[in-house]
């Protein structure tokens, strides 16, 4: 056991050294390369990305959105075609730095803190933050009324800072733009604060929602360009200015209903705004200041995994017993359950539980949905492990039990299951460790567990590396004792003494 630990630390140390030792690839950017390639590769996230970048409702294989139009115009001015590179929004900046595409354009707010990492083009849009509430809302009139309320926003968005500055707001962080409004309509949130373009597309047409107060805050979207690629930055700035003067930019925004007087300010604001000092602080904050949040996330991960595993273990046992010994309708139902849950992605099961069930009138809280989702999914796997265990108990054992006058049930409980569980133990503990890691999936249903906490912290500080290592170590610190415990348990079940 000591051995394993030593090898582990060695590997980890090696990984760290390697990460530092490999130099960042100095991406040879520049216009020449784009022209030679024949297309401009731009990064963005089309998942829930309306009206920025999203699949066309008429032809989902085609992307549309005001940024698609803008990217097209920029590419045209460069004499090439535009091609989108799909990336999770959170990881656009790291992907850009890695050299995955030429630039990123996806509602990325210009902040001094981001400016340390990347170059920004001149602003191409002036956004404001729009507060949205339910139609029947009487109390919340503006941002000032949000104290003590549940307010949804996006991870890493400027709105998050505004909410944090108010203080006392119960902030719920989402990774998609659809879900906060969905939860608002369902009553899970009291309000949503997000960039106006998002509100214009997702909230305005929803008859259950309305805007509250005038837009707050003000900021700029800029195109993110790799540091050192000044040639591209200059070219993009020039093109933006040209598009602005020619009125093409205005007509793109008008097409998407995004034009307002504010945008006139674009001409005055080629340099970008100030602000975001608070983020700057977190960028340079000592690591230990993140621990309370990370530990809280780890606590939630432990809680949700343990509770779901308990459900999986007991429900799985019931399923196996029904499948093997139940009367026909029950046994086939159990089989169908197992096949259904094993044959469909956990992610979809979670979406259906959390976002689908409300359509038929059942609204689960995130914790309950996460517990049921993980537990019911893993129950199917546990059931199969038990079944394999039961099948591997020799037939003679049941016959000996029967010959003592035991009924089927007693024979199962006293003779077959104890032996089957012993055989199944390694599989069950393996699954527990897997569930531990799969629990990060519940972040899609607004549970802020460890992985989600990491995503939020890293997205706002860009410290993906250090925070990532810490989070990985936290996971290891949780799963390693589990496997040690599993091995002990196995030995004890085997009757090994000492």
């Amino acid at each position: 056991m000591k051995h394993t630990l030593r090898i582990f630390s060695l590997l980890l140390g090696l990984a760290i050294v390697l990460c530092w030792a490999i130099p960042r690839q100095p991406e040879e950017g520049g216009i020449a390369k784009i022209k030679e390639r024949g297309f401009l590769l731009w990064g963005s996230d089309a998942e829930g990305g309306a009206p920025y970048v999203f699949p066309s409702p008429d032809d989902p294989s085609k992307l549309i959105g005001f940024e698609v139009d803008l990217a097209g115009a920029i590419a045209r001015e460069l004499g090439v075609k535009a091609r989108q590179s799909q990336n999770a929004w959170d990881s656009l900046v790291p992907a850009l730095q890695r050299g995955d595409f030429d630039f990123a354009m996806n509602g990325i707010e210009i902040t001094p803190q981001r400016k340390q990492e990347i170059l920004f083009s001149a602003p191409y849009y002036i956004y404001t933050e729009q507060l949205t509430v339910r139609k029947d809302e009487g109390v919340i009139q503006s941002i000032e009324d949000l104290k003590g309320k549940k307010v949804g926003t996006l991870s890493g968005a400027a709105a998050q800072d505004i909410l944090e500055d108010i203080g006392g707001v119960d902030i719920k962080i989402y990774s998609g733009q659809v879900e906060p409004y969905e939860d608002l309509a369902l009553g899970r949130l009291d309000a949503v604060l997000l960039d106006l373009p998002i509100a214009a597309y997702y909230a305005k047409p929803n008859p259950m929602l309305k805007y509250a107060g005038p837009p707050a805050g003000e900021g700029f979207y800029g195109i993110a360009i790799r540091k050192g690629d000044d040639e591209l930055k200059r070219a993009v700035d020039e093109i933006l200015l040209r598009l602005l003067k020619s009125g093409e930019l205005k007509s793109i925004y008008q097409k998407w209903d995004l034009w307002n007087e504010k945008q006139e300010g674009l001409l005055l604001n080629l340099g970008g705004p100030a602000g975001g000092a608070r983020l700057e602080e977190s960028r340079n904050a000592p690591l230990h200041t993140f621990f309370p949040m990370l530990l809280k996330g780890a606590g939630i991960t432990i809680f949700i995994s343990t509770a779901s595993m308990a459900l999986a273990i007991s429900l799985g046992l019931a399923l196996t017993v029904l499948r093997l010994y139940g009367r026909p309708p029950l046994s086939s139902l159990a089989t169908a359950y197992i096949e259904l849950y094993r044959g469909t992605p956990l992610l979809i099961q979670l979406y259906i539980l959390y976002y689908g069930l409300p359509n038929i009138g059942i609204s689960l809280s995130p914790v309950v949905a996460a517990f049921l989702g993980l537990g019911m999914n893993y129950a199917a796997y546990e059931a199969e492990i038990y079944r394999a265990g039961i099948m591997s108990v020799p037939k003679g054992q049941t016959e000996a039990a029967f010959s003592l006058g035991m009924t089927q049930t007693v024979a199962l409980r006293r003779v077959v299951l104890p032996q089957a569980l012993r055989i199944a133990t390694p599989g069950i503990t393996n699954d527990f460790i897997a569930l531990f890691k799969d629990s990060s999936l519940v972040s899609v249903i607004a549970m802020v567990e460890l992985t989600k906490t990491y995503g939020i912290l890293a997205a706002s500080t860009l410290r993906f590396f250090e925070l990532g290592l810490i989070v990985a170590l936290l996971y290891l610190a949780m799963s390693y004792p589990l496997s040690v415990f599993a091995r002990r348990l196995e030995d004890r079940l085997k009757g090994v003494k000492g």
Partner: protein
Amino acid sequence: MIRISGLHKYFGDQVLFSGVDLDIQKGEVVVLIGPSGSGKSTFLRCINGLEYFQKGEIHVDGIELHSINRTRPGKKDLEAIRNVRLKVGMVFQQFNLFPHMTALGNIIEGPVTVLGIDKASAVDNAVALLKRINLEGKVDCRPEELSGGEQQRVAIARALAMKPGTMLFDEPTSSLDPEMVGEVLSVIKDLVNDGMTTIIATHEMAFAREVAHRVIVFDKGEIIETGPPEEIFTNPKAERTRTFLRRILKD
């Protein structure tokens, strides 16, 4: 008293028994011999309901087992089978001790979970049984820590702990090393001398000759000859019995 009449047993389309009859008196010791595959095990297993049969009747101490032609036996059938099992103990060729329990645990399992006897008196009785089979030192050993002969003796004690009226032995010494056969046979002899109704399927001819009141010769699912051991072993009537004995005594 056990009465088997008109027993028919099929495995799918394959017919094993087509009308086997046999009566066994209380206290009688019956030994089943015959070539491999002749149906000795299946016959024993039918008596305690480990195999269902398709036609005929089996009476064990007044309890009636009926033929079962469905995939799932009915409630009444299961009840009858269980009542028979409470009166009949069985010892298997492979011992089939419960590996997750100690020798003592194996022996008290039936009395405690099936009969509901309180644990203290079940333990007293189990210790007495272990003494009787000379294993009082192995109370806390698990099956894997016992030799084959010791395991089989514990298996016999486990069956006896249920205080059965009849004992079935299916080749109790066939998977033992030769030096352990004796200790198991002497435990069985001891039982037989106490007057236990006993049915034994075995290939140990000398033992059969010594303990049997009556020898039953099976071949291809039929009883081809029955009689007292002296008669069967010295003056068999059926040609097939002679062939079988000649072959087995030569080995």
